[in-house]
């Protein structure tokens, strides 16, 4: 059907050639990856971008000729360095994995054996002959920029940080100089600085050893930082593949464009926009373009038959017949940051918090004005969540004074008055844990309401529906249970539950970090609207500076339990004063080469 693009420099066979790969469920009913074709040169990094359920991880695993339980590889060939993995016997395949093809998992903490020393686990990856050779192990450590010391080889996984564990996992993958490495979101759990360093290491290793790598991620900015080419996956199909710069600057598929519009850009204070409609079920549609229901450019032909991959430029292919057309997206212009009259709503003075004997907040002082959105930014362990929990009254092991409306605010929610509790509402990070799974969404909202007000059941129902309506959830959602809702829907419901009490201050604890970018965009849009319409004050806790660029009026940066910088968003972003802020800005993954250049000079 499709002629592979051949350019003059591609003489001989590429390091990795994948043709028409399909992954189906064991009963053959659903196709989770359909007709995937890729080619990689030695040393090339290809990024695979997609949202949850798009099949990107399934595709990544299939390149090792492996599927999760209940799935099987239907059609297609995978050739790595001339070997066809499909024809290898199970024992042979086992041998090839680890030597020819390798895998770096998303969560190294669960991939490493907690009972074995790092050295033992590294040695296991080497040829039996080489295992005794400690210098080789130390070389492996220094290759991934870990301290090449005996003591490091003697340590156990729990003694290392997340970034170090991920480096160990990468060292294990590179140990035998494989021809292909599949990395499944290896930096998702890391903070931006560690992520930047790990990405750097991977890029250098691939270059130096001519190893082809597939980098699977949901974060298009991360992929832009590492990959020379990028493939965008939607509903099990590659919808666009091409050189990274080309795809990011001139995305040809409507989905790629929407995805890029949803990613907050740290260099650009424009508001993000979400993708309308909802994500499809896992698995490919056979009869039409899967994106057609959400696409403003879709024509009848898109709904009638599946578009083929078309080559629009050398090496740039797109699965859309209207790749030349553009929808009328609102231009990304600068957002007007509103100056709010800063009448302090909440003030914290010298707040110190403890876990047992350990002090994690060392006297933090700051204010949130009425109707103002303050971003609380810092990397993991900086104490930002603890501070948010103190303000929410959820962390009682604390000292210091807080005032709310100029009246003293007790640190323990049990001592606060009901009126105060209703005016400060907390929204949790994990949308999957913040609702009781045994109660319908409507009942959960009603329960919160009845905690503060005596209402008849019909009044209560009216308020519940009104709250759902404010976050654009349909009334039918009231009867649903949390498991029926997607992550984004649950987070909307959590916002509705907070709004139902008519609060004045909303504490949002990393509420978008568990969500896909397109959903994150929708949620930040919603919060922005709510702030404007209802004059809500917000404390938005996040590790991602880009998210708050178009949302917050002020930024508070924390590090190691101290407040290190505070100021209006634009000023902090443009002229960061503290080293921590500079570092956070420098290490944030960027879209554009220009942005990356600028960051280096910060």
């Amino acid at each position, binding site marked *: 059907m499709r002629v592979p693009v051949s350019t003059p420099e591609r003489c001989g066979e590429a390091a990795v050639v994948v043709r028409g790969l399909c992954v189906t469920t064991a009963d053959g*009913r659903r*196709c989770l990856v359909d007709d995937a074709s890729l080619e990689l040169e030695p040393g090339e990094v290809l990024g695979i971008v997609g949202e949850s359920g798009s099949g990107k991880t399934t595709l990544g695993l299939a390149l090792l000729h492996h599927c*999760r*339980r*209940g799935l099987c590889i239907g059609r297609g060939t995978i050739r790595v360095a001339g070997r066809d993995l499909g024809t290898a016997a199970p024992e042979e395949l086992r041998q090839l994995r680890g030597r020819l093809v390798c895998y770096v998992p998303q969560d190294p903490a669960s991939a490493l054996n907690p009972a074995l020393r790092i050295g033992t686990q590294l040695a296991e990856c080497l040829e039996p002959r080489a295992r005794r050779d400690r210098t080789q192990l130390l070389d492996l450590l220094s290759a991934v920029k870990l301290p090449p010391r005996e003591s490091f080889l003697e340590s156990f996984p729990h003694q290392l940080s997340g970034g170090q564990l991920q480096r160990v996992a990468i060292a294990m993958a590179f140990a035998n100089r494989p021809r292909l490495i599949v990395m499944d979101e290896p930096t998702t759990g890391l903070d931006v600085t560690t992520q930047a360093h790990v990405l750097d290491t991977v890029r250098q290793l691939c270059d130096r050893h001519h190893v082809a790598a597939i980098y699977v991620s949901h974060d298009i900015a991360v992929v832009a930082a590492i990959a020379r080419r990028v493939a965008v996956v939607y509903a099990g199909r590659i919808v666009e593949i091409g050189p990274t710069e080309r795809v990011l600057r001139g995305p040809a598929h409507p989905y790629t464009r929407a995805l890029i519009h949803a990613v907050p850009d740290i260099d650009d204070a424009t508001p993000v926009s979400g993708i*309308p409609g*909802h*994500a499809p*079920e896992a698995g490919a*549609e*056979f*009869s039409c373009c899967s994106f057609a229901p959400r696409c403003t450019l879709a024509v009848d032909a898109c709904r009638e038959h*599946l578009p083929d991959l078309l080559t629009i430029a050398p090496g740039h292919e797109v699965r859309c017949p209207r790749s030349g057309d553009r929808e009328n997206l609102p231009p990304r212009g600068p957002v007007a940051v509103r100056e709010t009259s800063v009448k302090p709503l909440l003030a914290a003075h010298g707040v110190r918090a403890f876990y047992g004997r350990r002090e994690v907040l060392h006297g933090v002082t700051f204010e949130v004005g009425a109707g103002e959105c303050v971003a609380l930014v810092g990397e993991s362990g900086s104490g930002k969540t603890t501070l948010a929990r103190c303000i*929410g*009254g*959820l962390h009682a092991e604390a000292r210091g004074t807080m005032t709310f409306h100029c009246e003293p605010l007790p640190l323990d*929610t*049990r001592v*606060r008055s*009901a009126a105060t*509790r*209703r005016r400060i509402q*907390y929204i*949790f*990070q*994990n949308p999957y*844990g*913040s*609702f*009781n*799974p*045994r*109660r319908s969404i409507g009942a*959960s909202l009603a*329960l*919160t309401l009845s*905690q*503060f007000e005596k209402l008849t059941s019909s009044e209560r129902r009216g308020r519940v529906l009104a709250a759902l309506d404010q976050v*654009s*959830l*349909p009334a*039918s*959602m009231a009867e*649903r249970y949390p*498991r*029926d*809702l*997607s992550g*984004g*829907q649950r987070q*909307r419901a959590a916002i509705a*539950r907070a709004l139902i*009490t008519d609060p004045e201050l909303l504490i949002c604890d990393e509420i978008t970090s568990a969500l896909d970018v397109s*959903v994150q965009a*929708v949620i930040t849009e919603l919060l922005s609207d709510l702030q404007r319409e209802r004059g809500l004050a917000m404390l938005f806790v996040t590790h991602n500076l880009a998210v708050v660029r178009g949302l917050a009026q002020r930024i508070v940066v924390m590090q190691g339990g101290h407040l290190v910088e505070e100021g209006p968003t634009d000023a902090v972003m443009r002229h960061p004063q503290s080293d921590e802020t500079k570092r956070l800005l420098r290490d944030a993954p960027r879209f554009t080469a220009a942005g990356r250049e600028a960051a280096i000079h910060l």
Partner: protein
Amino acid sequence: MAGHVSAAARSAARSDAARAAGSYPAWIRSVREFFSRGSAIWGASLTAAVLILVAIGPLFAGYPPIDFVGAPFESPSLDLPLGADIMGRDVLSRVLSGGTVILSLSALATVLGVALGGLLGISAGYFKGVADDLIMRTLDVLLAFPQTILALLFVSVLGSSFLLIAVLVAAIHAPQVARVIRAAALRVAGEDFVEYAKGIGTPPLKIMAREIVPNVIGPLLVEGGLRFTYSIALIAGLSFLGLAQDPPAANWGLMLNENRIGLAQNPWAVVVPVGLIAILTVGVNLLTDAYGSWAARGNRPGAPQPAEIIEGPL
């Protein structure tokens, strides 16, 4: 392209099936899903068979269970289908009415034990800290005693009454149930929705009742099933030792003891009560297992997603 066409047809057929499935209420679909496993069908049939036998059996007994109607250990005949026992009483009639006390006492003891243990476990898991230590260490001390012997001691000193036996067996179960439920409650108590309920000022008792209990119902029911089989074994054992009911009462446990010397002459007088206890125990265990796997289905990797797609944003 042929592959694509047939796949399209398949997907059309699938959505028809989804519509058909969607026409039943959710609870019927759940029940059907539950009985789709073999262990559920077998467990339910075995348990139901014994329960029905115990419930309506006495109506079909040929003779009163304490009447002497044959020779001791008489072999089965048309008149006495399972023969006669040591005193010449009809084994069938005694089997039919001999399960009532064992079963009702076991049920009572299980309910009491699971309720008490559940309450202790949930309190320990929710309050943590000092309350947790106090409750769990006290239960550890109780667990340190050989429980069956303790029960025997109490029964022999205080005399046997049904209520006392039920309470003793419940007290034996409570610490074990509490340990399991504490672990489950500890996990639930760490969830954000419990944190949220605390944050809006919900009193502890309401949090336990509304937020935690519904989320430990699964382990509670599994424990209930498991404890029920233990209760049956324990109470049948106490009956065997003559501590539950006095002769000439018909009781499966007592029947074993009375008739074991005649095992060679009329084995049915022993085999049938033992078999019924075994069938009931196996049945309840299978049912419990099936429930456990059914309740965990939502967390299983590769579990089917909700059948209908929710219309709405995102």
